[in-house]
């Protein structure tokens, strides 16, 4: 009788056993390595090499770099700021996307994303990665150079405007004295990107989208700029930083109370400028599919998408700066209170070391307490870990409070961010509720209503300045 | 020889199948007993219509010589030598012989259909598979008179041009199998069977096929399946086995009793058979009488005699008890009231009375037993034995048995009787084989004749006979 073959289960077990013991052999042959092994094989030596190189160059080059930096302070400052702004925009865009997803969902009686990361927080990051990973191919018949440059122009236009926005007393990109003008100039550039995108995609829908966006932004640019002139008259300068300072003191000194009509016009015109509902004619889903970005995919579409959200952030920032006092506190805030007495011993920067050491000690004590309290069920490292986390949280809160009290720029950022995100919420709220306006109504409204209103506001403000002989007139 | 009790029958009754009463009395003794034994001579005209007794088969069943003296294989020699197939079938038609399988189908039509069917090979199958476990008629016939059956089958084979004969019977009937095999061997030695039969160049091979199996193998198409070694499930008819039977070839299937009578018809001419039976049917049939009778056993009864006479044969109802009902036709027979004693025991009358000949068994039920319990147990038996091929039989009978069980347990649903009759009508209407048509008889005859006992169970939920435990309202102590 022939020997009966072993059952399939046994054969499978045999194959797996072979696979395990042959794993050692696989590491030598690149083909057999799993992806993680391959990554490790490449990155580890590279990291080592770079680390060594950095240490050597730091030691050798430290002296000359320091004095070069010391020599031309403004250039360094500019480079740092530009880097900061560029790095800042993408996270804000992510934050806004996540906020919009969640808020509109809540308004629709839905829950919104809650599967990716805690409460769905990683949703926009995942969107970003997805957009990054997708292939952005150019369909046939597309005018390739214009097609690829369009998103860059739009994104840059909206990012550049961040340069002039005063986040806090000392914290701002570049304090041009013609900050506002620079702002509107950059705003105008983004329309160029949309047009280029629309025209280059060789698709009727995007063509319509592009033309619509051109018409819309151009016709809303005028009331937008005129409505801001009132503020300029009051503040006497176009530099946003000074405008913000002009409104310092309590909430009553904010220009919103002096320029009520201007706020309204500015708000409406700004929504149209950023293509936000109810004026999102450019990518009206139900009519012209996705407007100018119909043919875009991958990171090109990503730029358009982020540009839109950065625009929203900028506009709300501008509204807070121009009319709601930028980084000034709503009531005369007793602080910044001088905390120098804390630093009686004058060790200055050494404080950081002390705080770090204190943090470690606190972590150990807490870890021990938790370990005992838990009756030794937990393993020591996890108890210590929890202790460290709690201690760390406690220390950071303390530091932030100290900064708010002590440093005026932290305070400034706090207030600025609060006000800006209130307006972002309003924009998102509008997107959740309002239907879309028709193209001709949009145009009619701009030319027949907004323009005359902004002119009226300009005339009244000018008259007021002359008659009441306000300080800025002198 | 199984000690089945063969009841003595009055002399005027013909003895075509079994030797005359008195069990192993050899021919010689019977002569000594003074019975008028007339040996039928070939071609002799029948002497008048009155009861002629034909020399019964030899006392020792397998003694060929004694059998030859008694006229065995005479019909076969006549059939082979000087009768053509047409004449044999004509003789059979003249005799009006009807199948003994319970359905009573005229035999000659089957032969004609089988002879006409074009095929290179035909079979003759002797259905000696007595499905009803309580009845031994075929077994006793094979033990007491094997040569008659063999000769009948041989004649049939000659008539339809078959050369293979298969005898299917129960494996439990060990003596019958032994007797048959010795009879076949002796007949082959004597040249009546085997290759060159009586020098006529025909060959007749006989194969005895003991089959173990279920109740269903009594039905002809199921028996063929059993012989082929496949699942015993009936086939759609038509095509009838006469055109497409064993291994797909035309097959003639008859009960053993039908074959046993044929030699007499061939030798004595159709007339002799005609008058050997009262009005209605012709010839005799083996009936098994059991139940509460003085001397239960089986007897050869001419068709048309009343059930009362048959029961009297077995000594009548036992003295201590009175008859309550008559179960005629085996497990799927009809339960008839006592006044059915007067109905003649032949096909049409029984059908009219709501029973049927079936396996030829009559059970006398006395007042001690509960008819509802009996009917539901019989239906349960039929449901268990169903081969399961068709839905109405497989599920319908099971539901029917459940209805019977519910009535016995005393939890009948409101419209039990109407549901019962309605379901039975559906089962009978969509039957594939006779089992479905007959299995509904016990409960239906109960509804027809014993409505009061049924109502007692359903309405007052009492069991007059005290058999149904849950309903035993009557004082205990009644013998169950």
């Amino acid at each position: 009788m022939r020997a009966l073959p072993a059952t399939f289960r046994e054969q499978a077990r045999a194959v797996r056993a072979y696979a395990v013991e042959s794993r050692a052999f696989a590491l030598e042959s690149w083909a057999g390595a799993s992806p993680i092994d391959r990554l490790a094989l490449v990155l580890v030596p590279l990291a080592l090499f770079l680390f060594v190189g950095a240490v050597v160059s730091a030691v050798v080059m430290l002296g000359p770099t320091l004095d070069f930096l010391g020599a031309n302070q403004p250039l360094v400052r500019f480079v740092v700021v530009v880097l900061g702004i560029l790095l800042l925009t993408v996270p804000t865009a992510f934050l806004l996307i996540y906020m919009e997803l969640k808020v509109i969902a809540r308004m629709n009686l839905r829950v919104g994303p809650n599967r990716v990361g805690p409460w769905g927080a990683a949703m926009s990051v995942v969107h970003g990665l997805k957009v990054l990973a997708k292939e952005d191919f150019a369909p046939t018949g597309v005018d390739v150079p214009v097609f690829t440059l369009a998103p860059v122009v739009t994104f840059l236009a909206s990012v550049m405007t961040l340069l002039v926005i005063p986040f806090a007393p000392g914290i701002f990109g570049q304090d041009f004295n013609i900050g506002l003008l620079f702002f509107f100039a950059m705003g105008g550039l983004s329309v160029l990107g949309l047009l280029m995108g629309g025209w280059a995609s060789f698709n009727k829908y995007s063509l319509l989208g592009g033309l619509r966006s051109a018409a819309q932004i151009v016709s809303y640019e005028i009331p937008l700029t005129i409505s801001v002139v009132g503020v300029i008259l009051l503040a006497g300068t176009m530099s946003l930083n000074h405008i913000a300072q002009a409104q310092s003191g309590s909430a009553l000194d904010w220009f919103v109370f002096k320029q009520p009509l201007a706020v309204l016009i500015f708000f409406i015109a700004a929504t149209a400028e950023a293509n936000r509902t109810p004026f999102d004619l450019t990518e009206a889903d139900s009519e012209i599919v996705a407007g100018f970005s119909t043919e875009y995919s991958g990171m090109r579409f990503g730029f358009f998408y982020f540009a839109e959200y950065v625009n929203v952030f900028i506009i709300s920032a501008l509204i807070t700066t121009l009319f709601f006092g930028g980084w000034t506190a709503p009531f005369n805030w007793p602080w910044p209170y001088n905390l120098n007495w804390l630093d009686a011993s004058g060790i200055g920067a050494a404080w950081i070391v002390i705080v770090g050491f204190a943090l470690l000690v606190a972590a150990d004590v807490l870890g021990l307490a938790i370990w005992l309290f838990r009756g030794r069920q937990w393993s020591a490292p996890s108890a210590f870990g929890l202790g460290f986390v709690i201690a760390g949280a406690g220390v950071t809160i303390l530091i932030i409070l100290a900064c708010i009290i002590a440093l005026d720029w932290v305070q400034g950022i706090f207030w600025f961010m609060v006000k800006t995100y209130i307006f972002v919420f309003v924009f998102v709220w509008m997107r959740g509720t309002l239907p879309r306006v028709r193209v001709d109504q949009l145009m009619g409204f701009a030319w027949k209503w907004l323009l005359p209103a902004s002119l009226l506001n300009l005339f009244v403000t000018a008259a007021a300045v002359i008659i009441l002989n306000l300080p800025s007139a002198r | 020889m199984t000690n089945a009790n063969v009841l003595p029958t009055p002399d005027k009754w013909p003895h075509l199948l079994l030797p005359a009463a008195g069990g192993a009395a050899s021919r010689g003794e019977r002569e000594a007993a003074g019975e008028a034994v007339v040996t039928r001579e070939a071609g002799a005209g029948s002497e008048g219509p009155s009861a002629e007794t034909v020399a019964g088969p030899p006392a020792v069943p397998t003694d060929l010589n004694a059998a030859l003296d008694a006229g065995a294989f005479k019909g076969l020699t006549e059939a082979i030598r000087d009768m053509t197939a047409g004449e044999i079938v004509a003789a059979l038609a003249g005799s009006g012989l009807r199948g003994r399988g319970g359905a009573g189908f005229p035999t000659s039509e089957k032969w004609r259909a089988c002879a006409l069917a074009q095929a290179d090979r035909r079979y003759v199958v002797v259905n000696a598979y007595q499905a009803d476990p309580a009845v031994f008629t075929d077994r006793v016939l094979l033990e007491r008179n094997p040569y008659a059956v063999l000769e009948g089958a041989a004649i049939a084979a000659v008539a339809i041009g078959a050369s293979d004969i298969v005898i299917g019977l129960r494996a439990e009937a060990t003596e019958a199998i032994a007797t048959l095999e010795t009879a076949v061997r002796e007949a082959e030695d004597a040249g009546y069977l085997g290759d060159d039969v009586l020098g006529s160049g025909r060959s007749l091979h006989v194969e005895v096929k003991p089959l173990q199996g279920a109740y269903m193998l009594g039905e002809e198409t199921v028996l063929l399946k059993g012989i082929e070694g496949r699942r015993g499930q009936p086939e759609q008819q038509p095509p009838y086995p006469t055109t497409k039977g064993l291994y797909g070839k035309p097959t003639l299937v008859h009960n053993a009793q039908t074959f046993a009578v044929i030699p007499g018809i061939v030798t004595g001419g159709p007339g002799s058979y005609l008058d050997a039976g009262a009005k209605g049917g012709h010839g005799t049939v083996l009936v098994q009488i059991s139940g509460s009778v003085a001397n239960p056993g089986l007897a050869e009864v001419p068709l048309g005699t009343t059930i009362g006479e048959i029961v009297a044969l077995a000594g009548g109802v036992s003295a201590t008890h009175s008859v309550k009902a008559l179960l005629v036709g085996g497990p799927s027979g009809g339960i008839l009231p006592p006044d059915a004693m007067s109905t003649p025991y032949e096909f049409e009358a029984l059908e009219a009375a709501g029973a049927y000949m079936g396996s030829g068994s009559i059970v006398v039920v006395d007042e001690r037993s509960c008819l509802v319990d009996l009917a539901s147990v019989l239906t349960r038996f039929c449901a268990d034995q169903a081969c399961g091929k068709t839905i109405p039989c497989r599920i319908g009978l099971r539901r029917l048995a459940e209805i019977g069980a519910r009535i016995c347990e005393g939890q009948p649903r409101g419209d039990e009787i109407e549901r019962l009759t309605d379901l039975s009508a559906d089962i009978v209407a969509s039957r594939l084989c006779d089992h479905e048509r007959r299995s509904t008889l016990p409960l239906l005859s109960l509804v027809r004749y014993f409505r009061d006992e049924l109502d007692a169970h359903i309405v007052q939920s009492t069991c007059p006979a005290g058999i149904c435990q849950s309903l035993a309202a009557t004082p205990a102590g009644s013998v169950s």
Partner: protein
Amino acid sequence: MPTRPARTTSRPKQRPPEQHRSEDDPRIMLDRAVSADLYEPIPPYPTRTEREAEFYTIGDGEMFLNLGPQHPATHGVLRLVLKLSGEQIVDVDPVLGYLHRGVEKICENSDYYHVIDQVDPLEYASALFQEWAAVLAFEKLMDVEVPPRAEYIRVLSAELLRISSHTLFMGFLALDMGGLTPILYSFIERDEIVEMLAALTGARMLFNYFRIGGVNGDLNHEFMSRLGDWMSRAAKQTEANTGLLNENEIFVRRARGVGVMDREMALRFGVTGGNLRASGVPFDVRRAHPYSVYPQLDFNVPTRLEGDSLARYLIRMDEVRESIKIIDQCLNNMPDGPVMAKLPRLLRPHPGRAWGAVEGPRGMLGVYAISDGTDQPFRFRIHDPSFMNLEVVPHLLPGNLLADTMAIVSSLDPIMGGIDK
């Protein structure tokens, strides 16, 4: 151990022989076309009729724009070829048939029971009305008398479905005009109603609940409790949801005076239902050709005169209020008794013709059944209201802007399932 014989069934896999690429190989032609920039326009579609020829000749400054069939806003797979000059619509050529399944032919090859569930997917947003029309026609053919309780249950479930269909209509109208929230509110509302009907009929969309001579199942406790709970807050919920749109200036400005359909045009094209009543003609099948128990129910037929998209929207909101009233009445005087008439297992109506019409959410839903005595209908003609309503689009759209096409088409509330049959 039984060895399995060698596989003879599957052929060994070989690579097809490498052919020499001939001149007219498409890949060669494509490379040449793209590289040599010889991108001449695709020859125009061969026009057959005179109207088509006139439509497909293009003036200067004009262009064709395909709206559909995969367009996000068309209800199902409707394709509108627009001839635009700038944003202005010059002419429209609707193209139908993308959802054609030959339902009528299938119904003519199936027996009378089977037709009922063939008919459901036609007007899928309101499947019960379609069944009702078919069942009405067959009952006339076989002159079957439907028990009163079944009639009331039919009215009850159908009116519920009408409310859910109109809520859907409101959601899609707002979505086509850019609003994101109303569609969600309407789906929440609709889901509640559909859950209720699932408790009664067993299905959420394609119910297969009506039978010739009655309905499939009687009211059960689960359905009644959910209905009671929903009725208590139905009116308040509808007002809240519509409140979002009724006074919204943007919505009103986009809907008022857009796609005005006057009486003559509506009557000429056979438009029925809400769209007709919005143009001032108070025609409602429930009143004009009363069927079932509607004569005993008192409800009024809301009509408006303006005939624009806003009127069509407001009419449907009024109809929702009317339906809530009808459901109330049904619940109050619901008779008891059987829900299904006794019918033979095999239905062979005597040869004849019958017309059954029902007032569906989108208009008069009719079935014209001809039976020739066999167990399959000889002819099963379905009259669908959306087909008539869509007939009007090529006459309403020219002159409007591209954005208005959405407002007008979705205000007519066409269902492609019914149109393409």
